[in-house]
């Protein structure tokens, strides 16, 4: 009798979502109508005089436009970086180099609010996340690596680390400023110079960072930031005077880049896609696990390469977990990213929204149970309800391929062995999660999960001191921490 009641009870969460608007003020940031390339310490238009629009995904309206760098611009930027490397940066005492990076960290902190507003307007992520996560973590990343600059001899026992030269860096649209910091900070600390290309849909905070770098008086050419699309990236990858490629983005493009540089002496690190398993055992702290699942898949609209997109739940707690998950999803506020209460903002682009919807269609077509929040979506911009699919087959495309959106698949398992086997049964290996109150089980699981980052009883945690990067098709090389220095040095 108690069980019957169990299944019919329902909590009401409408009131939790209906809060008066609490919009962040736009007046703390100025978005200029047009952004030029940052080459050799100066802002200049592309030689082709071409610009592309960047839009606010929450409204679909044009926000600004950025210069589209062509091969000649790339060449100019690489030459500036080479010149700065040979004439200045390579020779500079390491502690002075470090002080420049510290200075960048501080200036990002000072302008944090401005960065947060621009990040949210350009990319669609909730202001709460850009304010509390993206921007402070980016500043901390500069701060962390700044201190390494004059301590490299301690990082590589019995070896002498030397810088590589010019690093070509290409970053994605999901954490624009944070990814720029992940790339630039270790490169500068180890004595390399940089040509960085931000993603086409989110160029603005990188250009704001260029302003900071200019203001910080970094020697001209040490950091060059050029905006553009795929062809700009290709020109950078294929430029003969690049010593190192660092790419974060899709596995598909990562493979193209690796092929492109085959036969050259360019060093390369790739931080690519993922389809992370998140495993809940019946002895887990269930409510915290559910919160971890929510953070795992709905953080940044699920536009996270390490998102916990495959949930595995031990059969005996499946109903409990799914109900709690549904309750939690009902309380998530989806809408205007600039509202301080928004939990899930706008999907980054129309193209990405279409891609996610395609996968949802596949899931429905295969007959899985789908549950979406009952929230009302804004009538313009690119939005999607948080979505979960239950009873999904391991072989389904929605459980195999990276969706890169707020879509979770749920499967059950019975034994530890089955969980490990299913979790590892995927070409990716970026991250994984495991939830159990039993310590010895945690260590068994974390050891056997083939992934570069394993979160036990937590998920989607990041820190400048913590190395991040994948196994298998999630790429190679680590970013963050001591291990994040290695990709930028030679011996």
């Amino acid at each position, binding site marked *: 009798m108690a069980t019957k009641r169990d299944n019919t009870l329902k909590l009401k969460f409408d009131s939790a979502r209906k809060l008066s608007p609490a919009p962040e003020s736009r007046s703390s940031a100025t978005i200029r109508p047009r952004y030029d390339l940052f080459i050799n310490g100066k802002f200049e238009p592309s030689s082709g005089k071409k610009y592309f629009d960047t839009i606010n995904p929450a409204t679909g309206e044009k926000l600004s436009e950025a210069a589209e760098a062509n091969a000649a611009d790339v060449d100019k930027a690489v030459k500036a970086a080479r010149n700065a490397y040979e004439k200045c940066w390579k020779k500079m005492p390491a502690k002075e180099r470090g002080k420049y990076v510290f200075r960048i960290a501080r200036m990002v902190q000072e302008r944090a609010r401005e960065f947060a507003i621009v990040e949210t307007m350009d990319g669609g992520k909730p202001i709460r996340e850009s304010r509390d996560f993206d921007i402070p973590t980016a500043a*901390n990343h500069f701060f962390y690596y700044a201190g390494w600059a004059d301590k490299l001899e301690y990082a590589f026992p019995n070896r002498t680390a030397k810088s590589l030269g010019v690093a070509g860096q290409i970053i994605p649209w999901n954490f624009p400023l944070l990814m720029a910091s992940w790339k630039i900070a270790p490169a500068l600390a180890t004595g390399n110079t940089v040509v960085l290309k931000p993603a086409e849909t989110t160029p603005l905070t990188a250009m704001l960072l260029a302003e900071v770098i200019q203001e910080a008086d970094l020697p001209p050419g040490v950091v060059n930031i050029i905006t553009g699309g795929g062809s700009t990236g290709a020109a950078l990858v294929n430029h003969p005077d690049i010593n190192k490629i660092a790419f974060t983005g899709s596995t598909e493009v990562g493979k193209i880049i*690796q092929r492109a540089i085959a*036969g050259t002496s360019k060093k390369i690190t790739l931080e690519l896609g993922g389809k992370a398993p998140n495993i809940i055992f019946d002895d887990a702290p269930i409510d915290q696990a559910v919160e971890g699942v929510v953070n795992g898949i709905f953080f940044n609209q699920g536009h996270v390469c390490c998102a916990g997109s495959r949930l595995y739940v031990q059969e005996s707690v499946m109903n409990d977990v799914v109900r709690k998950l549904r309750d939690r999803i009902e309380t998530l506020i989806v809408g205007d990213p600039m509202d301080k209460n928004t939990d899930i903002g706008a999907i980054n682009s129309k193209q990405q929204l279409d891609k996610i919807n395609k996968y949802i269609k596949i899931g429905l077509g295969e007959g899985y149970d789908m549950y979406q929040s009952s929230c009302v979506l804004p009538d313009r911009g690119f939005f999607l309800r948080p979505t979960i699919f239950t009873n999904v087959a391991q072989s389904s495309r929605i459980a195999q391929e990276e969706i890169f959106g707020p879509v979770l698949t749920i499967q059950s398992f019975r034994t530890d062995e089955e969980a490990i086997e299913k979790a590892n049964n995927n070409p990716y290996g970026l991250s994984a999660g495991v939830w159990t109150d039993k310590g010895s089980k945690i260590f068994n699981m*974390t050891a056997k999960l083939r992934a570069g980052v394993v979160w036990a009883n*937590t998920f989607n945690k990041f820190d400048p*001191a913590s190395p991040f990067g994948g196994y*298998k098709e999630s790429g190679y090389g680590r970013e963050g921490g001591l291990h994040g220095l290695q990709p930028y040095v030679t011996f």
Partner: protein
Amino acid sequence: MMENIIAKKSPAAARVNGNSKIAEKPEKGKRLEVLKTYKIYIGGKFPRTESGRYYVAANSAGEKLANMCLSSRKDFREAVVAARTAFGDWGSRHALNRGQILYRMAEMLEGRKMQFIEELLKQDASRKLAENEANLSIDRLIYYAGWCDKFQQIFSSVNPVACSHFNFSAPEPTGVVSVIAPQNNSLIGLVSVIAPVIAGGNTCIALASYSKPLCAITFAEVLNSSDVPGGTVNILTGNPDELLPYFSNHMDVNAVVYCEKDPAGRKVIHENAALNLKRTVFYEDTNWNSKEVQSPYRIMDTQEIKTTWHPIENIGGAKAGY
């Protein structure tokens, strides 16, 4: 499965391995020497190549030394299956145990040193160089045997994250590694590239030197008698140009090690590795006798760094609260 292949191929295999071709006629009253059949080493067994093909290994004077298996892509495929199966065991063994097994390999190698010296002599080495190479190979195994339970400590870190979590990073084996051994020598190169791979808990498929293949198979016999679980190390003989694509494009191989400077070979490997994002490890060395080629950093070349997070409950103490 393997037995079946061998059985099916046995007539051909017997033909190509006809030792009588090599043996000289015994002088009167002298004992007929028993010649060695060189086979390949897959999954702890010594089959002949499934292809039934062979090539003649000769010294620089053109004297025939042995018929060697000209391994095929199918032999490689079988070896990958064996290596993948063995990885579950070898990769999760205690580091101490791996160290002891590498040490045991050195012991076995020491015991059969004379045989290696003789093979090296046959393959154009002077006695002095042959003895030196055999000794160095033994010492190199000892060197890596000692690293098995130490490199993790050197390359691990506890990371001071700015939240209430315990966070540490440690190396783990990348998995199945294909190794194209240095082509310019018979033993020391092979040992120098296999040892760091397996010391770190990987399993491997190694392709021996094409021109100096004898020691590789004798080394396989050493492995087979030294407690290394079958499949941990698999050794093939054959043509690198033919096998290079398979060594680098197999989707169940996690890393590939290549020791030639040949840019075309490197390009092929790099392009093929992109299929499943294999780790590519290229070594520039030419002098494999040098101490420079041994280092714990070589173990790290086929390791992944795994970072693990866990919350820290913070009760009472200075931070009075819940």
